[in-house]
C-alpha cells in the first residue's frame, strides 16, 4: 500500500475492485465503513456479488480478465471530459514527456515486437531527450507526441459500447462508476483503490494495476490522504518477506539479483544505478552502491573486504534474460532438473496454479524438506490421491514449526508497518521457531563444509552470530537488518537512518529500507503511542514503525502544490512551513508526515522557481510518476488482451487475442483450452472470510471448518438450470488440467454475462482446500484446475480467469 489501513477513512470514494475486502481483509471495513458514514461512496466491481458488494453504494459485475477494458473506459471518460487534475498531471507526472519517434501502436502490438521470441525491444519506446540528456517536455500538454496526447489517442478506442461488449458490464453502470470515481479529480478530493489478487493473477496483471495507477495520477490521487494505490496484501508478513526479497529476482531492499553479465561489484553497481541529468531529480536510486555494499557487509561481516569486492563473487548470479520464477521453478522440477527442495511455511501442492503439475513434479525430487505447523498436502504428497507411495523415491523431512504466538519477532503489514510481537506460551512439544530451525540448519551445513566441499567460501564466511545463550535471538537479527557503523567514532553503534549508509564498507545494513527501524533509541517497531500527528488523519507516527523512515504515506510530496501547500486543506498529509522573506522561502521546515525528501518546494510563495528543489516522485529516475511506463515487458501503455483461456474467439479491442508476451510453458501437464466446447464456462478462484490461503492454517481448526466445511463452486441460477444442478449437491468441475469434486452453491450473486451478444456463464471456486484436512480427504484444491501461465513482468500465475465445465456427478 502506498497509504495504509487507517487512511482509508480519509477517502471520498473507495473503489474495491480485484479484491474482496469485506471477506478477505475484514478489519479494513472498519475504515471503509467510517468513510462511508462520512459520505464517501463505496464502489465494488466483481464478477460475483460478495459480502463486499453487500455494503457497497454501487456494485456492478464484469467478466473475469477484462479489467483493463473496464478501466481503459474510465481513462477515456476522464480524458474526454477533461476531468484530470491538470496542475498535478503537468507537474508531477511524465504526461508532459515527449516520446521518441520509434514508439508506435498498431493492431494490438507496440513497436519492437519479435514474434519468434515473444518479446519486445523496449528501446523503441524511449523518450526523446534534449541536449543535456533530460527528457523533452511540454508542460502545456499540447504536443501530439507528449504522453498525455498519446494516452488520449491510445484509449480513444475504449468507448463504453465496446467496453460493455467485452466486460459484460451494462453501459449505464460503467458511466455511473466513471462519473462517481472521476469526481475525485477535483482539487482537495481523494479516491482510493483497494485491490488484491483479483488484479495480479492474470496474464495482464501488472497492466491491470498500471491502468489504475494511471487513473490515480490523472486524478491527482497519489500521495494524498484517502488516495493512493493500495494492494491489500494477503499474508501477515508477505510485505516484510517481499522487502527481504525471498524472490529470485531481488535482494533485500529491492536491490537486483546480480546477472551473470555483472562481472564485478563495480559492474553490478554501475548497471543498476540509474542516472539522471536533471538537477531537479532526486533520483534516489543513485545511492544504490551504499545499499548493496552495506548488504554485503551484513552477509559476510569482516570477511567482506574492499579487496575481495565485499564477497560479491561468492553470491550466485542468474543468467541474463532468464526467469527463475515459481512457474519456471516447478517447470524445471517437473522436467527433473531440480533434485532437492525446501517448502518452508508454504504449501505448493495446493497454492500454485496447475497443482497437478506441481504434485507430479515433486515425485521427481530426491529429497524435500517441509517446515510447517501441520502435516500438509506438500509434505505428504507421496501418499496423496492417486499416488502410490511405493513408486515415489523422494525422501521427505517434515519439521515442526511453532506458531507466531510462541516466538518473538516482527512482521510488516500491508501498510508497511513493522510491528513487534512477543512470545506467549513456549513452542508446543518439540516444535521450534523458524528462526531456531534456520540457525541450527545453517550451523549443520557450515560444519559439513568445514573440511571439504565445493566453493566453500560463502558458506564458511556467512555471518551467523545471531544466538544469545544458545538460542536464536531475533533482536540481534533485527539490529543487523537496521545496520551498524563498522568504523569511525560511532563504531559498533546502530545507524540512525539509510541516509548515513556508505559504499566503502564502513557501514552494514542487511536491508537499507529498514535502516531506522532499530536504532540506539531502541526497537521502533515495538512502539505503542496512540497519539496522532498534528494533521489528525490517523498516521499514528509513534505506533510501531513503517518504512521508509516512518513515512506513513509515500509519494506525499505530491500531496502539496508547487509551493508546498496541501491540495486538501482539511485532510492534509504534509505542508511546508518554512519562513518567508520577500516572497521567498528562507528556511526549511515541513510539518505532518515525514516528507518524501525534505527539500524545498519547487516554487516560492511568489511563484518563482527554486533551484534547490526536487520533483516529488523521488524514486523515479526523472522524478516524475509514470503515466507512460517504458520499462514494462508488455508495453508502455496497458491494452486489453483476453486471458490465455477465454470464452471468445476474438479480442474485440485489437487483433491480438492474448498478451503477446505472456509466458507459455510446454510440458505435457500444460494443457490449455480456449473456445473449447468441453470447457464452456469462465472459471475463477477466490477466498472466503473463514479460511486463509491453502487453508493449512484454518482447515485443521474445527471452529473455522464449521463455518466453511467444504470446497464449493458458485454458479448462477440460470447455469444451474441449464446443467440440471441443484443447490447443495456435489458436482464435478473440470478444466484442461484437472478435475474437482465440489458442492454447488446456486446463487443470485452470480449472473450470466452478455458478451458481444452471447451469453457467457462464469463460476467460481475458493482455493482453500486440500485432501489432508478435513480428514474426510474429499475436499481438494481448486488449483488443480488453474493454468500455469502468468504475467510476463512478474510471472504471477493466471488463476483468476480460465475455462471450465461443471456437471452433475
Amino acid at each position: 500500500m502506498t497509504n495504509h489501513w487507517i487512511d482509508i477513512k480519509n477517502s471520498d470514494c473507495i473503489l474495491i475492485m480485484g479484491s474482496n475486502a469485506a471477506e478477505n481483509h475484514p478489519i479494513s471495513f472498519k475504515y471503509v465503513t467510517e468513510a462511508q458514514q462520512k459520505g464517501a461512496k463505496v464502489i465494488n466491481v466483481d464478477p460475483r456479488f460478495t459480502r463486499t458488494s453487500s455494503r457497497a453504494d454501487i456494485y456492478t459485475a464484469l467478466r473475469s480478465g477484462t479489467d483493463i477494458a473496464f478501466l481503459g473506459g474510465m481513462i477515456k471518460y476522464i480524458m474526454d471530459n477533461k476531468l484530470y487534475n491538470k496542475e498535478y498531471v503537468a507537474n508531477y507526472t511524465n504526461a508532459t514527456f515527449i516520446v521518441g519517434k520509434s514508439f508506435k501502436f498498431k493492431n494490438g502490438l507496440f513497436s519492437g515486437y519479435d514474434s519468434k521470441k515473444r518479446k519486445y525491444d523496449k528501446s523503441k519506446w524511449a523518450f526523446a531527450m534534449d541536449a543535456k540528456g533530460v527528457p523533452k517536455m511540454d508542460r502545456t500538454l499540447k504536443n501530439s507526441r507528449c504522453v498525455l496526447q498519446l494516452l488520449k489517442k491510445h484509449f480513444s478506442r475504449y468507448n463504453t459500447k465496446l467496453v460493455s461488449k467485452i466486460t459484460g458490464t451494462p453501459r449505464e453502470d460503467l458511466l455511473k462508476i466513471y462519473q462517481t470515481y472521476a469526481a475525485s479529480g477535483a482539487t482537495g478530493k481523494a479516491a482510493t483503490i483497494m485491490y488484491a489478487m483479483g488484479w495480479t493473477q492474470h496474464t495482464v496483471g501488472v497492466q491491470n494495476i498500471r491502468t489504475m495507477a494511471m487513473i490515480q495520477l490523472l486524478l491527482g490521487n497519489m500521495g494524498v490522504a484517502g488516495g493512493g494505490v493500495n494492494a491489500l496484501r494477503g499474508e501477515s508478513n508477505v510485505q516484510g518477506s517481499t522487502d527481504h526479497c525471498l524472490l529470485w529476482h531481488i535482494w533485500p531492499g529491492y536491490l537486483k539479483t546480480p546477472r551473470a553479465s555483472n562481472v564485478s561489484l563495480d559492474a553490478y553497481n554501475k548497471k543498476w544505478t540509474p542516472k539522471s541529468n536533471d538537477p531537479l531529480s532526486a533520483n534516489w536510486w543513485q545511492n544504490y552502491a551504499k545499499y548493496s555494499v552495506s548488504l554485503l557487509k551484513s552477509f559476510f561481516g569482516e570477511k567482506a573486504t574492499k579487496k575481495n569486492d565485499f564477497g560479491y563473487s561468492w553470491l550466485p548470479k542468474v543468467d541474463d534474460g532468464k526467469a527463475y520464477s515459481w512457474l519456471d521453478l516447478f517447470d524445471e522440477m517437473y522436467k527433473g532438473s531440480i533434485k532437492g527442495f525446501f517448502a518452508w511455511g508454504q504449501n505448493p501442492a495446493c497454492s500454485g496454479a496447475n497443482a497437478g503439475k506441481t504434485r507430479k513434479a515433486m515425485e521427481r525430487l530426491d529429497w524435500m524438506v517441509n517446515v510447517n505447523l501441520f502435516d500438509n498436502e506438500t509434505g505428504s504428497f507421496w501418499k496423496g490421491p492417486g499416488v502410490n507411495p511405493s513408486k515415489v523415491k523422494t525422501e521427505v523431512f517434515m519439521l515442526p514449526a511453532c506458531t507466531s504466538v510462541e516466538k518473538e519477532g516482527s512482521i510488516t503489514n500491508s501498510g508497511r508497518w513493522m510491528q513487534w510481537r512477543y512470545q506467549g506460551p513456549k513452542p508446543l512439544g518439540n516444535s521450534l521457531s523458524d528462526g531456531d530451525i534456520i540457525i541450527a540448519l545453517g550451523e549443520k551445513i557450515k560444519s559439513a563444509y568445514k573440511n571439504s566441499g565445493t566453493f566453500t567460501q560463502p558458506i564458511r564466511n556467512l555471518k551467523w552470530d545471531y544466538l544469545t545463550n544458545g538460542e536464536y535471538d531475533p533482536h540481534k537479527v533485527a539490529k543487523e537488518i537496521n545496520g551498524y557503523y563498522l568504523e569511525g567514532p560511532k563504531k559498533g553503534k546502530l545507524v540512525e537512518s539509510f541516509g548515513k549508509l556508505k559504499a566503502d564498507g564502513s557501514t552494514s545494513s542487511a536491508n537499507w529500507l529498514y535502516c531506522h527501524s532499530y536504532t540506539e533509541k531502541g526497537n521502533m517497531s515495538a512502539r505503542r503511542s496512540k497519539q496522532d500527528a498534528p494533521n489528525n488523519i490517523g498516521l499514528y507516527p509513534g505506533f510501531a514503525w513503517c518504512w521508509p523512515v516512518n513515512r506513513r504515506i509515500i509519494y506525499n510530496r505530491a500531496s502539496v502544490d508547487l509551493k508546498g501547500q496541501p491540495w486538501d486543506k482539511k485532510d492534509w498529509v504534509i505542508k511546508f512551513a518554512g519562513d518567508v522573506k520577500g516572497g521567498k522561502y528562507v528556511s526549511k521546515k515541513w510539518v505532518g508526515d515525514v516528507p518524501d525528501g525534505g527539500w524545498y518546494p519547487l516554487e516560492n510563495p511568489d511563484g518563482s522557481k527554486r533551484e534547490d528543489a526536487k520533483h516529488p516522485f523521488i524514486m523515479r529516475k526523472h522524478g516524475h510518476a509514470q503515466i507512460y511506463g517504458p520499462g514494462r515487458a508488455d508495453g508502455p501503455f496497458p491494452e486489453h488482451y483476453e486471458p490465455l483461456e477465454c470464452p471468445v474467439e476474438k479480442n474485440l479491442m485489437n487483433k491480438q487475442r492474448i498478451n503477446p508476451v505472456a509466458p507459455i510453458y510446454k510440458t505435457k501437464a500444460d494443457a490449455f483450452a480456449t473456445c473449447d466446447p468441453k470447457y464452456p464456462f469462465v472459471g475463477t478462484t477466490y477466498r472466503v472470510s473463514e479460511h486463509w490461503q491453502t487453508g493449512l492454517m484454518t482447515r485443521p481448526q474445527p471452529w473455522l471448518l464449521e463455518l466453511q466445511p467444504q470446497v464449493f463452486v458458485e454458479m448462477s441460477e440460470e447455469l444451474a438450470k441449464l446443467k440440471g444442478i441443484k443447490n447443495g449437491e456435489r458436482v464435478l468441475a473440470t478444466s484442461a488440467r484437472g478435475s474437482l469434486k465440489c458442492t454447488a452453491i446456486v446463487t443470485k450473486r452470480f449472473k450470466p454475462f452478455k458478451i458481444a451478444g452471447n451469453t457467457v456463464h462464469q463460476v467460481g471456486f475458493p482455493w482453500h482446500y486440500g485432501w489432508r484436512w478435513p480428514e474426510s480427504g474429499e475436499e481438494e484444491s481448486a488449483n488443480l484446475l488453474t493454468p500455469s501461465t502468468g504475467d510476463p513482468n512478474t510471472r504471477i500465475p493466471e488463476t483468476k480467469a480460465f475455462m471450465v465445465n461443471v456437471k452433475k456427478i
Partner: protein
Amino acid sequence: MKVTRREFIQITGATAAGLAVSGLGFDLAPVKSHAQMLKTKYAKETTTICCYCAVGCGAIVHTSKRGDGRVINIEGDPDHVINRGSLCSKGASLKQLTENENRLTEPMYRAPYSKEWKSVSWEWALTKIAKRVKETRDATFKYKNVIGQVVNRTEGIASVGSAAMDNEECWIYQALMRALGLVYVEHQARI
C-alpha cells in the same frame, strides 16, 4: 528505549453482582460459562499481531501461568490503533491455531518408497538434511554458465517460503539459501 508495554485492558476482580445471590443456595453459573471470575484473571498477557492477512491487527494472548503454560484466550487488543480490539473470524480463532491437537510436534521422516512417517530427533534430521544439501549442491554446482560467465550457483536445489515467517527469520533464511548458491528462491508474493 525500553520496550513499551501495552496498556492492557484493566481487568478488575469485581464479582459482587454475581456472587451476591449465592446465599440463596443455587448454583447460578451460566451453562458453559465461567461466570463471575474471568478465566484470564491469573494469566500472563502478551501482545501479538495476527498471523493471517496483512491488516496487522493486534491481539492479546492470555497464557496460563500455572499447569501446562498453554494459551487460555486470545482476543483483539483494544489499544491497537488499527483494529481497536476487533478481529475477524480467523483472528478470533487464533487460540485454536496454537492449541490444536492436529499440530506437528516432532520432526518426521519419510524414507524413499516408504508408506509412512516415522518420528526422528532434531539432531538426526538436521544432520541428514545438511548432508543431502551438500551432496546435491556439490553435484550440481556451476562455476560458469554455458557462455563462460562466472555464476557460482546451483540449480539443483530450490526453496519456496515464507510470508509466514517473521522479518528476522526471512532475512537469515534468504542469506543461508543465497550463500548456498540457490537461484530458485521464491515465495508467496509470486503467486
